[in-house]
């Protein structure tokens, strides 16, 4: 009964989404406040019913209801409870349901936090989000019903893909979707602005915190995915430029460009049309990512639902949503008036450069991701575009952007003085150059790309320092008082920029100085790597809840002192019979020691073993987390809340004035 209840709840949610879309949009066009008032309750009701459906599916998974096709395909009676719960979004159908749930969640959040918006603006934003909900709910119900029954019921399930049985994968999809779908809010704001023709500074201020929060979630989701791949795939890599990864990275690049362009629009009223276009692009790329992953158009190592019917549906939906919004943009954009001017060297011009570079980088990633498809479609043969392409294009493009990142926050709006900034950053340049030359000497030799990375990291970090020093020169009170008086927007930006510096430093080290060896190890034999001695102590049998494993013991010592004992595993999962390598990873100061087992070689217990030393990889995760915290902090800036309080009373005045 529970699955049928869930199915029914989805149908109700679809009806509510239709209501949420049609009535408020029509009402806003007609100026009918009664119809506009439908938006909020409809969005909230839709959320309740989607949540109910989601709970029903989770219940079916937790209770091993193998008469539900989705459960039988993706779960297993021996699967630990936590994975039975996360298997809810481990399948194509379930992850789409999660997508719809998060979209409904964002719609509800907008409905709650939009009291300060003019009624027609709020109605349009919620209405547009309702339209997107309609598309996805219809997609679920027509092509991917998560509650489809399997009769007669299966005796047991096929099990969740062992690779997904990891806690990085438990939170990666929800965070990623919070980001992907969060851009729907910025998209809805942009469409609402195009529909109403009111494209002002207030519009940028409203959509800015939403965009920043979505961006922070997306950052978190991407880094969790990367962290998962690093530990779980057993290859020691953290980014593969795989189409599925690119699918999440492209909206991130567009989103990064968008939050910077929004800053110009909010503060200076410039770049209006461009900002709107970016808002449309960021969400379009989220949809495109969904299409690429779900349709099987690109063969990727982890595209998990290849079904042309589904692909055709998403492509149609994509064409309507993106094509429609771009047509609306082309039609309405000329109405937007340009804001005040600025000189060739100003914060505006630097942010413009940032945007241009980011878009060029986005284009190169898009091209590399889709090129195999183009070649195939033209009958020019099957090719693959691998990491060398992306590294060769992406890194040189991003280097100037990172350099400008050091200057941008120091430059004044409208007109900045180059000599002034040069004076302030002179010593920073000197220190950064020194770091770039000297730091590699303490590591394993000079490498130009590593040096460039160190230079840029030091440059950005020092610029953050200079920015704080400038701010602290003025004002009263002690240092702590002054620091806490700084606006959260400033803190957030600097923290995120500092996070980039930390991440770039980590990448520069790990990409250039990581070492690995594949070795044959007899019991009690040892191998050397970067000054560490890895001693293999043999293997023992070890049974998990739903797998059998061979567990190795590897002792790692440095200068005769035991640093860590690692236990890599080779598992065979009971239901699927699939073999999987579970690498053992142990951080030692800033480095990771990483051991993965290959195959058993003889009766005496010799194995092939892969050893890694990954220096500073932790800085990568740390840098990304700083960016996430910075994003949330910036979104919590007081001025968004002041705007909220101030405009609570004169709602209709604001509507007229806007």
């Amino acid at each position, binding site marked *: 009964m529970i699955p049928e209840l869930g199915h029914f709840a989805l149908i109700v949610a679809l009806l509510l989404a239709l209501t949420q879309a049609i009535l408020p949009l029509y009402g806003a066009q007609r100026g009918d406040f009664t119809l506009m008032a439908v938006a909020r309750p409809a969005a909230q009701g839709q959320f309740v019913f989607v949540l109910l459906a989601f709970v029903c599916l989770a219940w079916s998974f937790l209770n091993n209801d193998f008469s539900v*096709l989705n459960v*039988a*395909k993706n779960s297993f009676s021996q699967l630990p409870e936590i994975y039975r719960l996360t298997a809810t979004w481990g399948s194509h159908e379930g992850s789409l349901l999660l997508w719809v749930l998060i979209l409904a969640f964002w719609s509800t959040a907008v409905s709650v936090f939009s009291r300060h918006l003019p009624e027609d603006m709020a109605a349009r934003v919620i209405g547009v989000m309702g339209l997107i909900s309609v598309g996805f709910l219809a997609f679920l119900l027509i092509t991917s019903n998560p509650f489809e029954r*399997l*009769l*007669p019921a*299966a005796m047991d399930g*096929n099990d969740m893909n062992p690779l997904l049985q990891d806690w990085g994968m438990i939170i990666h999809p929800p965070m990623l979707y919070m980001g992907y779908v969060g851009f729907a809010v910025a998209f809805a704001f942009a469409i609402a602005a195009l529909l109403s023709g009111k494209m002002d500074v207030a519009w940028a201020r409203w959509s800015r915190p939403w965009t920043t929060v979505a961006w922070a979630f997306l950052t978190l989701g991407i880094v969790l995915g990367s962290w998962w791949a690093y530990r779980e795939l057993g290859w020691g890599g953290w980014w593969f430029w795989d189409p599925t990864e690119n699918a999440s990275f492209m909206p991130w690049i567009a989103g990064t460009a968008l939050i910077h362009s929004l800053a110009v629009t909010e503060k200076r009223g410039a770049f209006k*049309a461009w900002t709107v*276009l970016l808002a*449309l*692009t960021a969400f*379009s790329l989220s949809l495109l990512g969904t*299409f690429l992953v779900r*349709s*099987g*158009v*690109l*063969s990727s190592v982890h595209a998990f639902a*290849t079904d*042309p019917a589904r*692909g*055709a549906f998403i*492509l149609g939906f*994509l*064409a309507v949503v*993106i*094509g429609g919004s*771009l*047509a609306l*943009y*082309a039609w309405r*954009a*000329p109405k937007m008036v340009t804001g005040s001017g600025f000189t060739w060297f100003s914060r505006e011009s630097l942010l413009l450069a940032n945007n241009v570079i980011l878009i060029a980088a986005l284009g190169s990633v898009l091209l590399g991701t*889709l090129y195999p*498809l*183009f070649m*195939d*479609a033209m009958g020019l043969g099957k090719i693959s575009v691998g990491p060398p392409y992306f590294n060769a294009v992406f890194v040189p493009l991003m280097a100037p952007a990172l350099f400008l990142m050091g200057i941008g926050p120091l430059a004044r709006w409208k007109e900045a003085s180059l000599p002034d900034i040069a004076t302030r950053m002179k010593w920073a340049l000197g220190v950064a150059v020194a770091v770039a030359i000297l730091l590699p000497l303490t590591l394993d030799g000079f490498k130009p790309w590593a040096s460039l990375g160190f230079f840029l990291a030091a440059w950005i970090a020092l610029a953050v320092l200079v920015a704080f020093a400038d701010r602290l020169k003025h004002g009263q009170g002690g240092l702590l008082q002054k620091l806490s008086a700084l606006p959260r927007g400033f803190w957030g930006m600097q923290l995120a920029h500092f996070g980039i510096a930390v991440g770039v430093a980590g990448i520069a080290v790990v990409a250039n100085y990581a070492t690995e060896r594949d070795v044959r190890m007899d019991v009690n034999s040892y191998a050397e790597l970067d000054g560490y001695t890895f001693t293999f102590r043999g293997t023992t049998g070890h049974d998990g809840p739903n797998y059998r494993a061979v567990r190795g013991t590897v002792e790692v010592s440095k200068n005769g002192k035991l640093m860590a004992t690692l236990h890599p595993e080779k598992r065979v999962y009971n239901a699927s*019979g699939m073999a999987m390598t579970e690498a053992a990873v142990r951080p030692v100061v800033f480095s990771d020691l990483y051991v993965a087992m290959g195959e058993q070689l003889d009766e005496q217990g010799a194995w092939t073993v892969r050893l890694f030393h990954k220096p500073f990889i932790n800085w990568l995760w740390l840098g990304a987390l700083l960016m996430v915290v910075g994003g949330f902090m910036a979104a919590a800036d007081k001025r968004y809340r002041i705007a909220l309080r101030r405009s609570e009373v004169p709602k209709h005045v604001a509507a007229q004035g806007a």
Partner: protein
Amino acid sequence: MKRWLPLVLFLVLVGFFAKGLFLNPREVPSPFIGRTAPAFTLPLVGDANASFAPADMKGKVWLLNVWAPWCVSCRREHPVLMQIARSGRVPIVGLNWKDKEREAEALLERTGSPYVAVPDDLDGRVGINYGVTGTPETYLIDRAGIVRMKHVGPISNEVWQKRFDPKLRELGL
């Protein structure tokens, strides 16, 4: 007209995607359609001494259904196959693909067998020769041993009505 540029670029992209969908490797028509079904000889599930070869079916229209006990989608089509078997319209041979756990015999005893014969393709070699990329897949083979159509994925009542029924009529069944 630069503001129309994003839309134009996007439409070009959609064109390629549509083509890409059409090119989906799972939908590539089997090269065997209109050709002789590849020959093989395999032992039967439940009786390793007996064997099956496509030549045994010469003179009959028949279905070769590639399935496996571990395949959930195959269980979905099982009731439909049972109906077809009961109707007596066309015999079904069930190629048991990569059944390493040796579960096929017990499973068919429990659920009933729609098959006239169940050849045992333990190492999956025969399936691969037929171009099987996943289970279930079903081939319709005519009296002369020529493959007339291939269906990827489970057979539902709808698939049966829309795809198989017209072909069978053509063959006079």
